[in-house]
């Protein structure tokens, strides 16, 4: 198995799918160079008809993907920052999310919107992890890959799906490395993966928080606390079963996320556990998330509000230690 970066994995997924299917096209601001490295070289390889830069027109970027997908292309559109799902709010939530439904399923909408999320130092409008907004919205599938292997496999799958996918690529992960399987593979939507087995507590986390959780879990293990760590991989569809089964075993759960706390993904997990694992919960579920403020520019402020390895360690320890 080759070891490559998250960014290279995305590039590979794009290359493989563009090779396989010439209906796949790729566009967005600066995609010809790829400001986070993921789309570099593709315009040279596939030509300006299939890979092109757009004006700074987010509604156009997403809305035209809906139009192109309706006609049978398989557009992969890029929003330069995930926060711009609001700049293209009508097109993301009302067009991509509802166009097929409101036309009675008359066609399919095989489109992907790639959206780099997270990171520190970019300021309030360029740093969010807005996946909870997408998870709340009917009609939009949502991927949150945490590893190069998943980034590649989920993106290939997203391109092949006949439904709109909002594909969050975490900016802090682009440079991270990991093994990717040799040869052709896809990762299915709606299947969580257990990143670490344990029986003391279930921790749900993805993307950059997953890395911190795994580091914290090692420290907890040294203290004799074996955490089971679940990476949902996609938030719609959302693999509730894997979480429920784990909590039935561990009796405790902590959700760690980089979104805003109120109505973050953790809230849905809390409700799900209420509904499906209530008798098994030995203690109330806890949430670690951003305390309902925008993400300031100063990097040392970001560490103050985004859950750190230390906080995760302390919080879990306090719960089950």
């Amino acid at each position, binding site marked *: 198995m080759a070891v490559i970066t998250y960014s290279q994995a995305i590039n590979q997924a794009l290359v493989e799918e563009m090779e396989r299917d010439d209906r796949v096209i790729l566009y967005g601001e600066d995609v010809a160079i790829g400001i986070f490295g993921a789309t570099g070289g593709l315009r040279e390889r596939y030509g300006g008809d299939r890979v092109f830069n757009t004006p700074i027109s987010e509604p156009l970027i997403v809305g035209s993907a*809906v*139009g192109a997908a309706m006609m049978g292309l398989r557009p992969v559109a890029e929003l330069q920052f995930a926060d711009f799902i609001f700049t293209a709010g009508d097109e993301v939530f009302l067009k991509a999310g509802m166009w*097929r439904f409101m036309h009675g*399923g008359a066609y399919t909408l095989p489109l992907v919107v790639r959206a780099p999320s997270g990171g520190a130092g970019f300021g309030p409008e360029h740093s969010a992890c807005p996946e909870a907004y997408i998870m709340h919205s009917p009609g939009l599938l949502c991927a949150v890959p945490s590893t190069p292997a998943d980034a590649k496999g989920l993106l290939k799958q997203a391109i092949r799906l006949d*439904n709109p996918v909002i594909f969050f690529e975490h900016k802090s992960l682009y440079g991270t490395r990991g093994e990717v399987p040799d040869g052709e593979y896809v990762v299915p939507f709606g299947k969580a993966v257990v990143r670490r087995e344990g029986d003391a507590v279930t921790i749900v986390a993805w993307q950059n928080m997953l890395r911190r959780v795994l580091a914290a879990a090692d420290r907890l293990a040294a203290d004799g606390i074996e955490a089971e760590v679940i990476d949902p991989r996609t938030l719609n569809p959302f693999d509730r079963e894997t979480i429920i089964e784990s909590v039935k075993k561990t009796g405790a759960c902590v959700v760690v996320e980089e979104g805003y706390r109120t109505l973050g993904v953790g809230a849905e997990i809390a409700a799900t556990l209420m509904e499906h694992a209530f008798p098994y919960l030995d203690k109330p579920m806890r949430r670690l998330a951003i305390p309902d403020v925008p993400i300031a520019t100063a990097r040392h402020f970001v560490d103050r509000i985004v859950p750190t390895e230390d906080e995760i360690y302390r919080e879990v320890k306090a719960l089950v230690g």
Partner: protein
Amino acid sequence: MTQLLRDAYRYAVLSRKFEDRIIHMGMAGEIPPTLHPGAGHEVCQTAALAALGPDDKVLYSHRGVAYMIARGTPLTAILADIANKEGGTNRGKGGVMHVVDVPHGVLGESGTLGGGLVVCAGVAMALKRFGKGQVVAHFFGDGGSNRGTFHESLNFSAVQRLPAIFFCENNGWAVSVPTSESTSVPDIASRAHGYGIPGVVVDGNDAFAVFDAMTTAVARARNGDGPTLIEAKVVRLAGHYIGDPQLYRPDRDLAAQKDPLPGFAEALIEAGILERADLETIDAEAQAEVERAVAVVAAAPLLDPALALQDLYA
């Protein structure tokens, strides 16, 4: 052209009679009163659509049902969509706002005004890539033209030389707001200048002029020369919605307004395309078709509400 404009007239008459019936049923509570009446716009709409070929695509606006009629969607399907009956096109999801008929190139509508403009750019992007010379026409109102999506779509389509026709039906009103209160120039088509594309103003009551302007734009688009913005000045003969009292409207006295339909008939007769005797036949056939559709839909069952949960994901 002769046959095309004759058909356009037939469609316009059919649409008028059909909508009159829909309004009547809507006011009587027999069907939901969800139509935005197209009265006054039909001549313009059907004449414009006459310039498209069968493989071309249409994204329409909320102003009436002449668009779909002119493309060949059966009246029963449209009425069933309004009445939430079986036999419609969108299975209860979108009503008359979202009639869709892919085989006839009727692609649908954005319920948020201006939302169709960016979708249209994407459709045009695909048509260009397919390379079969197809074009897409998007109809929208003067009100909708003030959305930012207008700017983004025209700029992008011009840069990419997309085969799109942006067709603005300027009726001087957006619900209760006169265009002069919302729009800084008298001619929306003058905005084309800023995109380096042709901007054409036509009298929307003159079917021949509309057809000509549209034919030129379609040829340009097919030829790979890019988009055109057409602005047709039309009159909204009715209220914004069924039952709109139009208290805001100084010109609401319908009698004082000029219905373009009789003028279209006269022009066709003058051009030798129709005989005066044809008019009655066309009227009678249209009325009969409307009644047939009403009867068919009256007999159709209401849609199963379980459908409320379907058609979201493929």
